[in-house]
């Protein structure tokens, strides 16, 4: 079955990058993948979004009206995309920056204070990795181990950032586990 994940937030929050890591991890696990960035005028106004499509078979359309999941890093993203998420999809809300909720009762709302966790980990810049890790911990689209491996690989030219991002991965996953308790 095909799964689509919409990553959305401000320019600079690392939206395109975290989406790429997910696509990379899914490719490593043998899936067909597609990564479709926003590069249009809206990006120049500060909003960035990116769709990742993961499928067991050949992917047709790069244009998807209703993604299965949403990772919303800021309020405009949540307001724009929460209404189009498929029922039973995950809507991850970065609650540090988003005071509202999706307003949907048919989705799996995952409320994570992503920025707070990132600051605690050591750098706000790791917020995208925290969110990615939380999302994967909940959705299980790929194995955490594969994801960790791909984070390492994506940072292979900046190895000194790997420990920080491994910590971000760990805390992102923990945040989801703690929610369940």
């Amino acid at each position: 079955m095909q799964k689509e994940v919409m990553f959305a937030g401000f320019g600079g929050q690392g939206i395109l990058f975290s989406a790429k890591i997910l696509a990379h991890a899914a490719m490593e696990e043998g899936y067909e993948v597609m990564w479709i960035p926003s590069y249009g005028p809206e990006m120049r106004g500060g909003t960035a979004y990116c769709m990742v499509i993961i499928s067991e078979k050949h992917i047709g359309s790069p244009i998807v009206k209703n993604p299965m999941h949403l990772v919303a890093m800021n309020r405009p993203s949540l307001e724009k995309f929460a209404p189009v998420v498929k029922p039973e999809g995950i809507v991850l809300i970065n609650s540090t920056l988003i005071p509202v909720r999706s307003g949907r009762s048919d989705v799996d709302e995952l409320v994570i204070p992503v920025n707070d966790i990132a600051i605690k980990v050591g750098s706000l810049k790791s917020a995208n990795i925290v969110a990615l890790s939380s999302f994967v911990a909940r959705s299980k689209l790929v194995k955490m181990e594969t994801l960790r491996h791909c984070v390492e690989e994506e940072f292979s030219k900046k190895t000194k950032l790997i420990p920080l991002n491994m910590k971000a991965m760990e805390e992102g996953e923990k945040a989801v586990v703690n929610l369940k308790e």
Partner: protein
Amino acid sequence: MRKVLMKGNEAIGEAAIRAGCLNYFAYPITPQSEVAEYLSHRMPEVGGVFLQGESEVAVGYMIFGASGCGERVFTTSSSPGISLMSEAISYIASAQCPAVFVNIIRGGPGLGGILPSQGDYFQATKGGGHGDYRLLVMAPASVQEAVEMVMEAFPLAEKYRNPVMILGDGLIGQMMEPVEFPEHLSSKPTNKDDWATTGMDTRKSDKPNVVKTLFLDAKVLNNLNLTLKAKYDRMKKEEVRYEPYNIDSDYKVLIVSYGTMSRVCKTAVDNLKEEGFEVGMIRPQTLFPFPETAINEAAGKKSCKTVVSIEMSMGQMVEDVERSVLGKRPVEWYGKCGGEVPTPEEVMEVLREFGK
């Protein structure tokens, strides 16, 4: 070889290097600037030349110059940039030099927008520049296919001593997909002695090669045009490529669609099949030469009532589809442009309507 996740634009740059092309001259324009960004560091690594020209007009002639010297050379641009290069493209076709042009189309006309479009179909297949010339035009529908087509484009350009164009759209350039690069091309042009101005010392022939495009004698110019026409006729015989989809079913509607648009159509065809409504598709991989015979035959299937050209333009390829169907069936058009890409849902609705 291991699959790598790559953006279309970067994969196009890498494919050219693997095809043995070590000359890239370009001028940046969205949505294809990543090709230049990528090759600005990759070309020096492999001992090649990366050069940013002062304009697309200049780049067009840099390509002409390098090609006349017998070098594998290519450039990438997007719609307005290709318009500026079109004069040089006509000259290159006239001088019968090989070169590869990649157009990652953005919305037009004019400066238009930066989002994907297929509005340059006419420009690529019917001219763009002046005079009786054609480009061999290939249209990839995935990053992998873009890689393969770029790698094939160089030997084809040399085989025909004619420019080849890869016609993609903004999405092909911007999206990432897993790609596997074929082995490096080992072939070198075998007919270089016939055209390259490499100096008499390096050549086997004692007849000098002259790169020129001015032929004031009507008879000579007519003969040149006959030579060009013979090449284009040969392309029509030898280079037509297309992918049939769901063509063994008893389809009521036949789609003709290419590039990104064809992928949206594929999803629509699959979804409609689940509803019990069969739609067939021919996806031209070469736009010139156009798969006229394949479309004509597919349109003639008994179950087929209508043929629809679905494109991200206001109806350009539809004229070639009409020309192929030859009145056998009604030919319709559906499309959007300016950066709007129809969704599978929209395509399905249109197809249901045409299928009634």
